């Protein structure tokens, strides 16, 4: 559909004397502008580079900030938000501090604690774990496995699921019974799948009865490959003086407060002796991301856009000066000043649109590339890449205003005499 652009001003003389005015179809105008654009493709590309960089930076910034804040929301899930881990502060000088054995009891009194359990890592030296008393030369029967002691509450705190048998309890711990619970990976390695026939394992020279096998845990995944003994065994057999850490499962939203309260509950006289690992405040991280990335890159994008607009204006102006002969010719062929102005305006606007398209593409590639590298999910608001060519076109239009007016003002015969 070709429509005739009405370039007539309202004060133009009527056409009743039978001389038809000059005109130009929209299709022809577009063709002429595009042809002007592609006459020197290299120069056109260099001209739009500033706009490409500017709009690319804007699209990338908006996309990355959305991607990054989404990443933080994704990480700040229910599991990590409800966990704190308490260990002894290693930086603290003075007499060695210890996590008290009754930490689960002390912390259990705090409001918001679902469960708190001790975890003690046991140094068994070079002792290997074996399920078979027979030394079979055909296959490997001895394994290097982690040995830890757990208070009964720990299984709740790490949200452990039991596959078979039973868990450690206070009675077993108090009597320092030689029993263990195996993580699922440890059980597979040792070849133990059932506990109803009371299988035994040995840790070095010490023998233990397997009373339970875990199915899985939701935190502290090192437990999956561990041999878990009672705290009583750890104290009496391995001379463990204190638990290594306390794992606390909290109610949703209680973790930040409990992170402050827990050291006081454990040792009211010296709360600084403990180190608390708690989830970061999500709002703070998002603000940091916004503060660091957005302001810098939005400014960069804005400056690039300005430079890009000046670049388009500059090159269009140079192009008008170079094409004086062409302008004169077009006037002689029947172009009015308006036709000339519109052609140059359209050319610079098209350059802006081109810059917008290239910039949006580049910006999207940056977002996808960074996301790929960081294994984030790339996210861009759908309007951002669609608006980029529009913004580019407006910039091009504004940049082309002055050159187009200069072109339109040229006197045709002087332009024609000026040479090519």
């Amino acid at each position, binding site marked *: 559909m070709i429509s005739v652009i009405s370039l007539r001003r309202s004060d133009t003389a009527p056409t009743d004397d039978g001389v038809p005015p*000059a005109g130009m179809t929209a299709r022809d105008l577009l063709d002429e502008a595009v042809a002007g654009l592609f006459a020197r493709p290299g120069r056109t590309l260099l001209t739009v580079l500033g706009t490409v960089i500017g709009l690319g930076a804007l699209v990338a910034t908006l996309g990355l900030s959305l991607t990054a804040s989404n990443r933080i929301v994704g990480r700040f899930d229910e599991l990590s938000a409800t966990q704190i881990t308490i260990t002894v502060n290693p930086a603290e000088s003075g007499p060695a501090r210890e996590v008290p054995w009754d930490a689960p009891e002390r912390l259990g009194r705090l409001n918001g604690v679902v469960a708190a359990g001790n975890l003690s890592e046991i140094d068994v030296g070079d002792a290997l774990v074996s399920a078979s008393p027979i030394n079979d030369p055909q296959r490997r029967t001895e394994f290097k496995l982690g040995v830890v002691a757990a208070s009964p509450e720990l299984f709740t705190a790490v949200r452990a699921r039991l596959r078979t048998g039973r868990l450690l309890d206070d009675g077993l711990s108090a009597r320092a019974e030689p029993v263990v619970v195996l993580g699922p990976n440890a059980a597979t390695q040792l070849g133990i799948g059932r506990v109803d026939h009371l299988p035994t394992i040995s840790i070095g020279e010490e023998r233990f009865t397997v009373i339970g096998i875990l199915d899985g845990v939701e935190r502290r995944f090192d437990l999956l490959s561990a041999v878990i003994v009672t705290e009583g065994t750890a104290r009496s057999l391995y001379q463990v003086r204190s638990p290594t850490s306390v794992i606390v499962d909290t109610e949703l939203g209680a973790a930040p407060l409990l992170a402050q309260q827990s050291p006081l509950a454990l040792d009211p006289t010296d709360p600084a002796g403990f180190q608390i690992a708690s989830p970061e405040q999500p709002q703070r991280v998002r603000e940091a991301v916004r503060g660091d990335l957005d302001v810098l890159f939005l400014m960069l994008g804005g400056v690039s856009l300005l430079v890009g607009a000046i670049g388009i204006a500059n090159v269009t102006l140079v192009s008008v000066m170079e094409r004086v002969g062409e302008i004169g*010719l077009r006037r*002689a062929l029947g172009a*009015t000043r308006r*036709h000339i102005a519109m052609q140059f305006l359209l050319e610079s606007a098209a350059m802006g649109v081109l810059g917008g398209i290239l910039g949006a593409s580049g910006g999207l590639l940056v977002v996808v590339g960074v996301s790929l590298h960081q294994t984030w999910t790339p996210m861009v608001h759908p309007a951002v890449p669609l608006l980029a060519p529009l913004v580019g076109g407006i910039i091009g239009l504004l940049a082309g205003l002055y050159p187009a007016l200069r072109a339109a003002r040229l006197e045709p*015969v002087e332009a*024609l*005499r000026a040479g*090519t």
Partner: protein
Amino acid sequence: MGAELIVLDGVTRRYGAASPVVALRGANLRVCSGEWLAIVGPSGSGKSTLLNIIGCLDRPDGGTYHFDGIDVAALSDRQRAGLRSRRLGFVFQAFHLLAHRTVAENVMLAEVYGLRPRAGRRERALAALAAMGLGDRADYLPTRLSGGERQRVAIARSLVNEPALLLCDEPTGNLDSQTTATILEILGDLHDRGLTIVTITHEPEVAARAQRRVRIVDGELRGAA
């Protein structure tokens, strides 16, 4: 001799407001349809101004200009542009071909501002080129053509719209004597077929080819009817 195509009566054109320079004073000129007129004169004598006025690129300050019975001064800018597009053909000293467009596209450009349909535009351009003996050059870029060939492309472009008047501004100014002869041959041929031609030149041999010559000196026409 046909009807009067160009009638200038006391046409005056001044430039500048405070102390105006008179570029054309009281010019009277009549050119009949089918005539070949040469306007000769040194540079700065007002040739450009006269070309401006006859070519409907400018309006006179005083006097009247009738082109084919139409009072040009009374027309709007767009109407004068329409007149240029449909009734006038221009040939310039510097050819003014667009360097990045093919020969055929350059000729097709003549139709853009006259609202002629796109359908058949290329065919009409090719026919005009063929008439100039350039049918095999249609898809060349002008930069690959010789000066004479370029001027023939320009003539083809000026003829696409079948104008009533061909205005030539120093048409052979950039050409050697042999090519000049070829171009003059073509103009003579067009004249024989009834086209009205006005040539502005300072070269005596070019002026000699015309039927009639007028001189312009210091903005005044001499030897004009």
